């Protein structure tokens, strides 16, 4: 037993002395958050002509009209009074929208931290009439998607970074 220990120790000494070191490049992708202030988001709300549907989310149907959330961007208005010919008639720009509900002449929708109320009595001219500011701030704070200094994270910038790592164990170069 003792002899094998000595042999092992002897050889392991050799192993260490054989180790190479080398320099290598390491490249990796970083996703930098893009922040926007709630003030600028609130200012950007508008009702415009229809736009293409790209990334649909939630649906809400009321009296022949269908509201389809364009995830994180806003809400499409579809005139569906004639089901064989639905027409995309308008778009509410509402950054940070995921959900919506309707009742009477009103549409309720989220926009990042805020709960926003729209008057939909004139479907061709939808207007914002009220909002509960910072209503959802606990959730956004909790998820690390918002801080008071920078605002909310509205997206991520993809960046490829490279760095030289020198004098490193060569074995790690291919990790």
């Amino acid at each position, binding site marked *: 037993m003792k002899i094998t220990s000595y042999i092992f120790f002897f050889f392991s000494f050799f192993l260490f002395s054989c180790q190479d070191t080398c320099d290598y490049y390491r490249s990796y992708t970083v996703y930098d958050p893009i922040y926007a202030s709630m003030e600028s988001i609130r200012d950007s709300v508008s009702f415009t002509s229809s736009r293409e549907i790209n990334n*649909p989310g939630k649906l809400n149907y009321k009296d022949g009209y269908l509201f389809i959330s364009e995830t994180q961007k806003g809400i499409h208005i579809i005139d569906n009074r004639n089901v064989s010919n639905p027409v995309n008639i308008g778009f509410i720009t509402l950054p940070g929208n995921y959900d919506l509900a309707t009742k009477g002449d009103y549409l309720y929708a989220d926009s990042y931290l805020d709960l926003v109320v729209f008057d939909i009595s004139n479907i061709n001219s939808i207007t914002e009439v009220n909002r509960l500011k910072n209503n959802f701030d606990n959730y956004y704070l909790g998820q690390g998607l918002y801080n008071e200094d920078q605002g909310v994270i509205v997206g991520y910038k993809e960046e490829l970074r490279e760095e030289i790592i020198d004098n490193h164990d060569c074995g790690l170069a291919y990790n």
Partner: protein
Amino acid sequence: MRKYISILLILLVSCESSSDLGLSGGRGETSFSGSGDSNTGIGGSMARFTIVDNYLYSVDSYTLKSYDISDQENPIYKEDVHLGWGIETIFPYGENLFIGAQSGMHIYNLDNKESPEWVSTYEHMTSCDPVVVQGDYAFVTLRGGTECQGFNNQLDIIDISDLIRPELFKTYSMINPHGLGVDDNCLFITEGEYGLKMFDISNLENIELIKHFEDISSVDVIPFMDVLMVIGSDGFHQYNYDCELGEIEYISTIPINNL
């Protein structure tokens, strides 16, 4: 040995089908997310906002918020109700809210609309699971996969005749179920990229696949007055359906340019 096993299996199967619950055809009341009065819009099964009478409810991953909208233009925030984790969808039915979570389905009663109160939870394996309700049954789809955790892809029919003790009635396997909708004897299940299914559910012991449109993408549905509105990653599709005759027919599409 094999023979014995197959005999055992047959016994198991026959046991299951012998429990006759004698369901009548139409179970009357039809509900959509956003039930209550006709003045309220109808949401899909994936909704996280809903309106019951003069109250708006929103859910995030952990919390239910209530708002008084008696004065519709001026909602008044009322209360935060802590729901646990992995909250995904909210569906109102009768005097209750059915909340789909990654851990199960929670039932909250609306005796106090300002502050819904927990009644019970039907627990299942971790997965994504919207819920819709009709009569004494809740229909829950479980979807596995990376964003949902879990491995199950199935439809669970849950007996909620006793709201305090919701019980699994029967499970049917699915491919990749997302949203769902129920109207009378029709149950619609969106299978994501695997299409759209329509089932006849007049016998819950043995629901029957009537049609599977495999060539469309579907994520959520709203069945309303014999028109099925379907949203998928490739378009907004509509169908005419007839639950009595068990028929469904394509009407129209607004294409979606998925970026």
